[in-house]
């Protein structure tokens, strides 16, 4: 089915060639439209990246973002399927076909507006969504080319329009690897493509505009936790005119997006921008406030006059393996390791940051998810000479985003698959010196459908390491449960909510990792939205009652 209109074998690499291709396609589109085979023949656009060696020495973002021509070319790969199966794969049902169509037209403002109908954080989700198992998994282009990695890069396009809007992401701080100037591209395209961008079409994006807020309702909303769910719930309830306060335990808002996901994957400036937008909308953000300890939910509602509460406290309590040696010096939970590195900037220790982190030379990271990849790649950047990733299944079963696995390998992380730690060995001072592992093989599929790894008896071997980072997941944060009688929790300690994200307590809603277990940014965001809609409805009714 692959068309022959354009060479598909030799990848188009230079900006000139891309411009030429875009121009040709635009001409063709104008005179009769692009056929499916034309679209399928457009080469998938590679994401410009920082060089793998250079980036191990900095914390700048790895993926640099599409240029404008790349974005338009990639958007033209979308077949505009009538039934748009991709939308089914997106947890918040973004109208993907319509926004890719707008990008192909060069109307990025429209594209962004379409995305924002369903997602408040496109710059974040475009970067961190596991697209290959969500929207892109269902994409017809990927299916036609029998390769999900050749699906339309929906996430990258989403990132492109989100970044384009206000150029808020500073160009990479590393000299020599600046992304191609987008402004220049826009002008070039205009000159070359007959119909491309007339001056009146030229996007004149102003700095992100603040959403309008309805007149005050006199109702007060408390949002507990400033992760993606909390941010969205705050924005949506504030828009309805309620007085909204976000309470955050840490000294900096943003949740996992600031203390978990590293800078090289999600620049903190993006999250900061979203927080600023909340502030501009009049949302009050109170940091260093631990609900349950500083004030309880009951006090907030009964004494401080909050009419509704959203609980978005995320996951907590890192899981350990309960093996010998886990209390040795040099064993971290991924949460601790990443928090020290990200939030407290331990990577700058000695030059402005005070938080120490082990100066690891040989690091073993245990786990196969995003958290494990982030830990391994952070260790690389903190100067480790050798980083091993230990995972008890195979790469196919790894829950991490494919791109992160790929990047980790590029950065020299050594993958030890079908292996699992048995014990951690220490020296006399109690510091880690080695990790003893067992080899595994895959047995029968388990309840989750993944083949269960089975240990091979007698296969023990040791790896010399000075640091072990455990990234095998979290249990639920217990603080709210311990301090809020009347809330219903399941046996794993996760909050029970109904389809509107309402808990068993009147006026109290919840979403994100505390409800779903460890989930994703987009799912947390989606729940924040659902909860906010339900809260707005609840508050409208409550207000009516109060009036009469």
């Amino acid at each position, binding site marked *: 089915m692959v068309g022959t209109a354009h060479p598909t074998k030799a990848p188009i690499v230079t900006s000139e060639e891309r411009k030429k291709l875009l121009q040709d396609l635009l001409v063709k589109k104008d005179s009769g439209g692009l056929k499916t085979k034309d679209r399928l023949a457009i080469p998938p656009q590679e994401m410009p990246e920082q060089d793998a060696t250079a980036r191990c020495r900095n914390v700048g973002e790895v993926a640099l973002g599409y240029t404008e021509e790349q974005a338009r070319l990639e958007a033209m790969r979308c077949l505009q399927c009538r039934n748009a199966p991709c939308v089914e794969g997106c947890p918040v049902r973004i109208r993907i076909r319509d926004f890719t169509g707008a990008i192909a037209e060069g109307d990025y403002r429209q594209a962004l507006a379409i995305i924002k109908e369903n997602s408040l954080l496109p710059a974040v989700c475009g970067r961190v969504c596991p697209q290959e198992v969500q929207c892109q998994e269902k994409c017809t282009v990927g299916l036609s080319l029998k390769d999900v990695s050749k699906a339309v890069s929906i996430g990258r396009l989403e990132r492109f329009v989100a970044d384009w809007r206000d150029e808020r992401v500073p160009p990479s701080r590393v000299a020599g690897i600046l992304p191609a100037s987008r402004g220049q591209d826009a002008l070039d395209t205009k000159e070359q493509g007959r119909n491309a961008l007339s001056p009146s079409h030229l996007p004149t994006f102003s700095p992100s505009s603040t959403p309008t807020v309805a007149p005050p309702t006199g109702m007060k909303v408390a949002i507990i936790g400033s992760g993606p769910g909390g941010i969205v719930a705050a924005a949506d309830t504030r828009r309805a005119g309620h007085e909204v306060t976000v309470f955050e335990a840490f000294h900096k808002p943003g949740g996992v997006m600031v203390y978990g996901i590293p800078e090289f994957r999600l620049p903190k400036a993006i999250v900061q921008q979203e927080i600023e937008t909340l502030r501009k909308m009049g949302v009050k953000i109170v940091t260093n*406030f631990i609900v349950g300890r500083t004030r309880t939910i009951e006090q907030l509602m009964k004494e401080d006059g909050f009419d509704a509460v959203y609980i978005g406290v995320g996951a907590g309590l890192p899981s350990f393996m309960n093996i010998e040696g*886990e209390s040795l010096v040099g064993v971290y939970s991924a949460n601790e390791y990443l928090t020290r590195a990200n939030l407290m900037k331990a990577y700058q220790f000695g030059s402005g940051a005070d938080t*120490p982190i082990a100066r690891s030379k040989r690091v073993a990271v245990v786990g196969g998810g995003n958290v494990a990849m982030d830990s391994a790649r952070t260790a690389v950047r903190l100067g480790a000479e050798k980083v091993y990733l230990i995972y008890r299944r195979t790469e196919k079963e790894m829950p991490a985003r494919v791109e992160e696995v790929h990047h980790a390998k590029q950065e020299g992380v050594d993958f030890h698959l079908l292996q699992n730690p048995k014990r951690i060995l220490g020296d006399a001072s109690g510091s880690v010196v080695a990790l003893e592992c067992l080899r595994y093989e895959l047995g029968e599929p388990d309840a989750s459908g993944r083949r269960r790894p089975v240990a091979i008896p007698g296969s023990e071997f040791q790896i010399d390491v000075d640091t072990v980072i455990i990234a095998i997941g979290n249990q639920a944060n217990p603080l709210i449960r311990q301090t809020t009688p009347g809330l219903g929790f399941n046996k794993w300690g996760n909050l029970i909510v109904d389809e509107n994200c309402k808990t068993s307590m009147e006026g109290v809603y919840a979403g994100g990792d505390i409800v779903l277990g460890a989930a994703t940014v987009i799912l947390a965001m989606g729940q924040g939205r659902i909860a906010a809609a339900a809260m707005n409805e609840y508050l409208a009714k409550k207000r009516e009652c109060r009036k009469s």
Partner: protein
Amino acid sequence: MSHKIVSKRQVGEDVFWAQVEAPLIAKARKPGQFIILSIDGDGSERIPLTIAGVNPGSGTIELIWQRVGKTTAALADLKEGDEIANIAGPLGTPTHIERFGTVVCVGGGIGNAPLLPIATALKQAGNRVISILGARDRSRLILEDRFAEVSDELIVCTDDGSYRRKALVTEPLKEVCQRSPKPDHAFVIGPTLMMKFCCEVTRPFGVPTQVSLNTIMVDGTGMCGGCRVEVDGAPKFVCVDGPEFDGHKVNFDLMIKRMNAYKKQEQQAYEEYKQHRCKIGL
């Protein structure tokens, strides 16, 4: 929301006391709880400090700390009217206070600070309170007067004999345990090694002994696991499960090793800070 230092003074060799604005914490805090602070913005270290007292009326909390590293030294250099950027709390599970009968409260060094509110609450709950306070030397002994107010009996000792009895706290503790009737409960707060040895003293007498652990902490909300200790063979998180534990079940040796984890780097930061201080003429 930053926190103004209302008053501050040095109360011993390397020991400082300050009263800091933190109205919500002052209102919520119960004996046994602590706070986490960082002096300024982003990269600054978060350290846990116990709350020595509160004045809900004026909305202040009392902090007592020993100058041991960069952050505690920088804190000591702040003046009245200066502000601390971040204080989060109160953290930790409050001390379980009840009428035990006779209780012995053992404080070592800076441990007297968190012990005071506990001794006070125990007294108010109708216990007979025997307090044993120890310090390396006279200049490091703190809060003697305030313990005198809440104790039925007060024993003070110094390691070098520069003040009162020359002894380690374990000596009088043993004597108190040997009395008949023996105390019904012991509360011990101080350096980790001292708590370990006090637990060894009370164990043969079967006196239940509560200790308050001061591990490394990052978030203080049960998210990072950096504060974990082994209690009764199982991992526990000091910030949410503690800070108080049954001292007879704590694996102190392991805890001491973990606490040494960052010693070298902390020392480096402290040295750099001291040099920096010299340069700017503090």
